[in-house]
């Protein structure tokens, strides 16, 4: 697979990968089995790497489709494939759509099929729509390549025989893309960039404002990434980040995408979260953050569910921070009390309480809460950050006591 990586790069990786969803969607729409079509296309890609440097095709997309089809015919002739074909005879050829966006959306619906577990949806999306190699996906999630190959082939087997011509659930697609985006904080691959690329393609395929909301949310958060860690790899919280490092171009694009989504007047959680991210991005300094507006958006966010404490505790926790900044730390802490039962064992709940205690000037309580959060953290950088926060709060308290 690494040979594939290197030669693709020489060829123009972006252009080749952009063809993957279009060719694959064409094959599947024609009635080919998803699993077999995906394998055939992978073989066609390898063939392309061998042949193209010497003989570049006039129409790369048609070339890939032809070679993949030939592979499918070969496979069908073989004994093993005959059985598979018998299972899939229900699949009738369908008129092929020609628009690129349609192909992407169609494939995303296949890969984000509700019968698949989230980890499989993510892996299949990255391979079949993103065009990443199994090795790259395995690296991104720190699992052996064989394990990821197995996960992908099991997912494809699950799809075998499923009707893939129904419109799928866009909400699932959005959630999978967001999963890809958030997974990038831990891994080596640039999954965040990949998620943004896929979300951008998705917005070409659907008018749904939540798709644009998600793209905006990713852009507006991604813009702050260069300031999120210091050179030693330590987490820098939003209030201490060097705002000069933020990507202004990305913020501007995110804001533009968000405006166009909000104009449709069908709000949803991604649009609201993007609006909150935009307000943070807009503030020239942490002090000038427009907390009252942020709180207003959080009010909208928690209003999206009937029982936000149970259905969307993360929104209630985010709102508690905003309440702390607008109405005072004590009010914010009272808001977190409502979440104790649901989030009391999660590090984020303790971290937020640490922040609110610090805001109220209660440093011993802040130190205890940060230490409780550190014990529950599941990410090394976050754990280290929380240990530092605890030590810092305790030292500041000692310093205060000495000056009294």
């Amino acid at each position, binding site marked *: 697979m690494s040979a594939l990586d290197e030669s693709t790069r020489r060829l123009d990786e972006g252009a080749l990968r952009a063809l993957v969803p279009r060719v694959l969607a064409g094959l599947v729409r024609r009635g080919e089995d998803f699993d077999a079509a995906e394998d055939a296309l992978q073989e066609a890609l390898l063939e392309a790497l061998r042949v193209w440097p010497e003989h570049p095709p006039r129409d790369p997309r048609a070339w890939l489709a032809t070679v993949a089809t030939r592979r499918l015919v070969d496979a069908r002739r073989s004994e093993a494939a005959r059985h598979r074909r018998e299972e899939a005879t229900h699949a009738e050829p369908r008129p092929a759509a020609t628009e690129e966006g349609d192909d992407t959306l169609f494939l995303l619906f296949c890969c984000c099929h509700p019968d698949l577990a989230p980890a499989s949806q993510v892996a299949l999306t990255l391979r079949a729509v993103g065009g990443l190699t199994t090795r790259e996906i395995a690296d991104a999630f720190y699992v052996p390549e064989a394990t990821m190959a197995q996960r992908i082939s099991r997912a494809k087997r699950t799809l075998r025989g499923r009707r893939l011509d129904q419109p799928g659930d866009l909400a699932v697609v959005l959630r999978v893309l967001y999963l890809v985006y958030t997974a990038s904080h831990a891994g080596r691959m640039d999954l965040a960039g990949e998620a943004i690329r896929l979300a951008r393609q998705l917005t070409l395929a659907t008018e749904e404002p939540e798709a644009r909301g998600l793209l905006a949310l990713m852009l507006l958060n991604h813009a702050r990434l260069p300031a999120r860690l210091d050179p030693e790899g330590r987490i820098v919280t939003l209030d201490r980040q060097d705002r000069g490092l933020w990507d202004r171009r990305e913020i501007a694009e995110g804001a533009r995408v968000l405006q166009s989504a909000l104009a449709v007047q069908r709000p949803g959680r991604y649009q609201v979260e993007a609006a909150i991210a935009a307000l943070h991005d807009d503030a020239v300094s942490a002090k000038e953050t427009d907390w009252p507006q942020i709180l207003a958006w959080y009010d909208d966010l928690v209003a999206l569910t009937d029982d936000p404490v149970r259905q969307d505790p993360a929104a209630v926790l985010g709102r508690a921070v905003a309440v702390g900044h607008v109405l005072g730390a004590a009010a914010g802490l009272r808001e977190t009390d409502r979440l104790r039962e649901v989030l009391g064992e999660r590090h984020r709940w303790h971290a937020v309480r640490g922040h609110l205690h610090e805001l109220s000037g209660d440093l011993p309580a802040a*130190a205890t809460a*940060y230490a409780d959060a550190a014990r529950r953290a599941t990410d090394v950088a976050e*754990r280290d950050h929380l240990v530092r926060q605890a*030590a810092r709060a*305790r030292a500041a308290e000692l310093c205060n006591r000495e000056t009294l």
Partner: protein
Amino acid sequence: MPKYLLLKHYRGGPEPHHPFPPMDQWAPEDVEAHMAFLRHVGELLEERGELVGVQALTPAQTWVRYGGPDAAPVTTDGPLPETSDLVAGWYMIDVESHERAVEVAAYISSEPGPGGGPLYEWIDVREIMSGEPSDG
């Protein structure tokens, strides 16, 4: 080249060399020095071509055993990390000799603690058997 697992425990070893408070109660500069040292150990082992992997574990421990046919697994939550011998994380290294593994472990154990002096933490050095595991 043999491979070794160097296990860091929360409170491990034949006998505690000297007691120390949990890290969140150290002075901030001591916390920084400690974390910087561990980062440096990782980089050093990588540069020397000896690092296979390094991983930290969360302190939440659950003991699990088969509950019998048609019964749920039996589980008990582990003891408190600060008071018990619990693995906190490990380095896996691929080195020339057992001597080198001991040398690396001793170096890790010299990590700065509260006040800046060495922590003298016990490191559990285990050689990894080659070949496929046949029995867990």
